[in-house]
């Protein structure tokens, strides 16, 4: 395989880790929505850390190798192309939304940990935090932006 093919492999690996990590986080988050016991919620939110590792690694791979690909690809792509700039901006937006959602989830984890230590009884406050519409909108909004980036990468409008 030539340099371009290898760069594409690493870029696509990044995309798989990024979107796959999002799918892992979504599956575990949806499972937590149906739970009441703090220890169960704590366990499921704890497993989401695996997704965070995949998303972080995926973002780095997709970004670094994506930029390299623009230079290396034999199709006269430019860093000034609209689709490249849009993908870069959307990646920042996705990370900002995901990061903000993650911060709110961390507060939920801290509350769940306190409740586990004090008897593991279901709590309306924890339930409200798990179902918090702002946290859910931030996290799932981030996922939708990632899907939009995938669409942008496939269609490359203006290329």
């Amino acid at each position, binding site marked *: 395989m030539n340099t371009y093919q290898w760069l594409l492999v690493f870029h696509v*690996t990044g995309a798989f880790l990024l*979107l796959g990590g999002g799918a892992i986080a979504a599956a575990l988050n*949806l499972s937590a929505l149906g739970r009441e016991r703090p220890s169960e919620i704590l366990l499921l939110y704890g497993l989401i850390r695996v997704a965070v590792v995949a998303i972080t690694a995926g973002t780095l791979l997709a970004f670094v190798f994506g930029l390299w690909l623009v230079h290396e690809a034999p199709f006269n792509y430019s860093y000034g192309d609209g689709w490249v700039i849009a993908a870069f901006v959307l990646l920042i937006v996705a990370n900002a939304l995901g990061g903000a959602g993650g911060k709110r989830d961390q507060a939920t984890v801290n509350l769940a940990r306190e409740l586990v230590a004090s008897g593991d009884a279901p709590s309306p406050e924890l339930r409200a935090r798990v179902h918090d519409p702002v946290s859910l909108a931030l996290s799932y909004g981030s996922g939708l932006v990632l899907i939009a980036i995938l669409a942008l990468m496939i269609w490359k409008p203006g290329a």
Partner: protein
Amino acid sequence: MRPDSWNLPLFLHILGATVLFGTVATVAIAGFASRNHAGYEQLLARVAGRTFLFGVIPSFILMRAGAQWIVGKEFPGDAKTPGWIDVGFIVSEPGALLLLITGILIWVSARRGRLMLAVPVLAGIYVVALGVAWVAMSGKP
């Protein structure tokens, strides 16, 4: 550069494949976690079961249908397909059997209230197979 008419099937194929990767990985994560979290086996078996039903199956269908759609456009009729496409078929078809066995084992495990070790092991093998497929599909060696 590929023709515009290939974009939608390619998008659906990749979207399905990435979600498939994530949801199968979730089954593996839940399965391995159930070995280390006594008292939560039933919860994690339910997580694996629901993820399989509502995540793995639909995303496999999306991935496979998207693949068939784009192969039909790129290699119409009896045109010979290159090796990197054959790798995809090798992963998706015997892979479907592997997923079917995994699904049956999840169902049996959920009834017992504890995920069998074979569930995360098979899910892990499928995750690795998907990795091989995306390297072949993207690198096109």
